[in-house]
């Protein structure tokens, strides 16, 4: 799956880090880095992280969602 985080919007609340630490990491107190193409097995985890983001900065590939729906 493919994701991108709008790091202008990100304010380092780190909810995503708590929910999916394999995908999202903080460097220091506030600078977020992440794996942009996580394994599909982590989809639910990443979706939860995106839903929990207080500023809704995590965007997930919708095509992947469509493919999953069709499968």
């Amino acid at each position, binding site marked *: 799956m*493919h994701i991108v985080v709008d790091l202008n919007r*990100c*304010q*380092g609340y780190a909810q995503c880090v708590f929910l999916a630490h394999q995908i999202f990491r903080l*460097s220091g107190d506030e600078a977020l880095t992440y794996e*942009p193409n996580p394994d599909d097995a982590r989809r639910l985890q990443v979706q939860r992280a995106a839903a929990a983001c207080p500023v809704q900065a995590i*965007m997930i590939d919708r095509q992947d969602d*469509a493919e999953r729906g069709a499968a």
Partner: protein
Amino acid sequence: MTLSATLAELVRDFKANGRIVIVGASLAGLRAAEALRGEGFAGSLTIIGDEPYEPYDRPPLSKQVLKGWVQADHTQLPRFQELDADWRLGLAAVGLDRATRQVRLANGEQVPYDRLLIATGTRARQWPNPAEAALEGVYSIRSRDDAERLQQALMAGPSRVLVIGAGFIGSEVASVCRDLDIPVTVTERGPAPLIGALGGVIGEIAAEMQRDHGVDLRCRVGVSSLEGDAGGHVRRARLSDGTTIEADVVLASLGSVRNVEWLEGSGLAAGFWGVGCDAGGRAFDINGVTTDTVYVAGDVARAPHVLYEYQFLAMEHWDNAVFGAEVAAHNMVNLEPGYRPHLLLPGFWSGQFGVNIKSVGVPPFGDEIVFTQGSIKERRFAAAYGRRGRIVAAVTFDHGKWLQYYAELIERSAPFPPPPPGWDRPDVMKPIPAEFPEPGVPTAIPDVVLTGHDPNERRAEFRPRDRPS
């Protein structure tokens, strides 16, 4: 049929049967294509890109990719919309003929368009001496392939990395080197890192931060030459102060060059700072007349901005690519008065040395700076930039949650110094000179540049059209 009904019919027909060509298959090109489909454009869509890859995200390249955590080929951007586009990847556009409305590709093929979006972005400025630049171990970083090569060089355990130029990319790479415990020297011709983008006051803080993390930072120093061994691998650099640095990996982070060469002879206002366009993304021709068929978005666009005295802004920022592309796409398939402006308040982020540096507005537009929150010593603060009594920009170090407060002040042209939010005030809140270098002083070029009021700015080459015979 009334005129407005005829026009509405034309728009409907264009949306159903028109031909749109996007040159540039990176963030701006992709988001424009998606926005066009989102606007109901069902005609033919061609996306031309000189790299062989589907659109990928560049900011991770100098951070998590270089660090070895994320693979370079794991940066592909998510898709939000079915595109049904004709992708022409690995094929550069080399010419534009506006009379016949055709883009010429490197293989000689001509691609016809009804509307064209220019989103060709920038490339890394290479080390100016070609023989030295060709030495093994000399890198620049802009593309996925660049990042992969440099990452492999860092993994090989170099004895020392030399970073030439302490702008954001150079500083981020130095930070990664320290994270990997690789000795690194950074040279900067200006008095401090990040000075072009954030001024000397912030630059001094960035300099201390680099040195505290073990970077051998040398300011007011240029690299005179690079020297290789018998095998053609770079071994040392001679600096302008007469000293030498032994290094087996050299990164030239000298800013970027706008990809406008392919527009030579097209009659567009294309030059050093990019392609001049109005705030709706419609390209100007060399006479300053807006075109109806050619649009510009992303790093290669320069457009007047209402908040900055209508000076043309050139912005190499992620959200400029996203929002500029969406506005251009909207305007490509709509008519006046349905046009939308791209009046983004510029913003960027940079993670380095464990600190999140963020900014809104255009810091170099200001001449004063005031620290409004937090502590400089702890490198956790907010500061505002002002010009003639109004706030024009702000910067935060690990204080990103407060940035929106300043963004709203900037959008309202609020007074400077601004009223600080009633929390976490520093001891001293007195405006001081922001210490931006004079224009023309050789240093790292900031990512947002005020390029003056001329749609065909002075450093563009003026090419009068052939007189009709």
